[in-house]
């Protein structure tokens, strides 16, 4: 199985796309598979690996890197359109 996503930390709720992924492509990473991305994901961008309700912390590297501004669905692209910095608010 050729991986197309990198799982950085077991606590993370996002993984990183290792190449550009087309909508509907199955996510394949260490210990994760069986779901597809809901939209096109650019290389090195984040994909939610479970539903992240609004206001919940986005975990990457095992740490909080942002907070979701709305419900982010499993397989969805996670970026500035659906999260905010805890530090420098938009």
């Amino acid at each position, binding site marked *: 199985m050729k991986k197309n996503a990198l799982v950085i930390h077991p606590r993370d709720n996002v993984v990183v796309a*290792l190449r550009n992924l087309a909508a509907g492509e199955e996510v394949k990473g260490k210990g994760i598979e069986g779901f597809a991305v809901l939209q096109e994901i*650019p290389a*090195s961008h984040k994909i939610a690996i479970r539903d992240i309700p609004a206001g919940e912390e*986005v975990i990457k590297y095992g740490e909080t*890197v*942002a907070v979701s501004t709305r419900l982010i669905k499993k397989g969805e692209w996670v970026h500035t359109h659906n999260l905010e910095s805890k530090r420098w608010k938009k």
Partner: protein
Amino acid sequence: MKEITGYERKNGKYGIRNHVLVMATVSCVNGVINRISREVPEAVCVPHSYGCGRGSARETQILFRILASMVHHPNVGAVVLIGLGCERSNSKALKPFVEKAEKPIEIFDVQECGSLQTARKGAEAARRMLAGISGQRRVPLPWDKLLVAMECGGSDAMSGVTANVALGAVSDWLVGKGSSVIFGENTEMIGTTHVLTRRAKSEEVAKRIVEMIDQAEQRTKDIMGHLASWVISPGNMDGGMSTIAEKSMGCIHKGGTTTINQVVDYGEWPTEKGLILQDGPGYDGDSMAGLAASGSQIMFFSTGRGTPAGFPAVPVIKVASNSRIYQAMMDDIDVNAGVLVEGRSVEELREEMIDRMVRVINGEETKAEINGMDVFTMMTLNPPF
């Protein structure tokens, strides 16, 4: 079992190289250093832009600390210093900082006999020293006498995902072996105070981390004004980084996940073991000087956009974050962490990097060493006057 070797120094430190260092005390004599470098290419010759024209106490402290630390560095077996005579870091002023180095040191001032005579004397001294230290033999190097620096520069979107993750895995392995790991770049810690303080050994270390990052953030705002938020740039965002905390997490990951035992000032020698933070700048060259001055014998340097930069007398192992730049700069980059994208595991890559590190410690040259890509710059606070 992985055995490492080095040169035991009189002060109990171990070098992994045994270089003769020929260094200017001020930029005015760089031409002399260049002449010696042509005559004695085996010596590590360091011209630079410093030594005078900056006056504050802090500026002087940094200048003397960095120059003196190059002399004291365990990878250096003997030293020729070329001075001018009237500079701030003149040989008389510098002497008290270097005379306890317990290694052969000779100092020549250009104002005593002119540049050509000084170059001749300096070259003769360097040759004599090379012969003098050539008989020193490598001995087993205890892992707890090893300090490894972790640096990143010319980063791209994959740096925090591939290369720095691999560096972090090596950092954790090293700390497990009893070695020490140091990294700096305080501007790239902004947004990670909560992570780093949680890992601090004590309240005191945590307090120092908060101070360091607050100052870095304030300084960034003072210098950049309303552009401060561009510390995370549109390029970073295009690359998938959404917040400053996320960008910084990718940076600090290179130090691994162990307890932070000490925060040292720029170029200061750690007194603790394990993972050490340095209150130093983000700019690669200046950062490397601080990490080397703190006594690190070897460095890992992750890069995504690609840089050839090495450091005088300190082997620098370059790690590419992506296969494209590794292919393009194969003459400059030692390890390709881009393989993580192609299905290799972090554990496999970590083993490869440890093997490479062991070989480099034991004498194998890095690409930057082979190519002579030494860069020597240091942190300054004000422009010269």
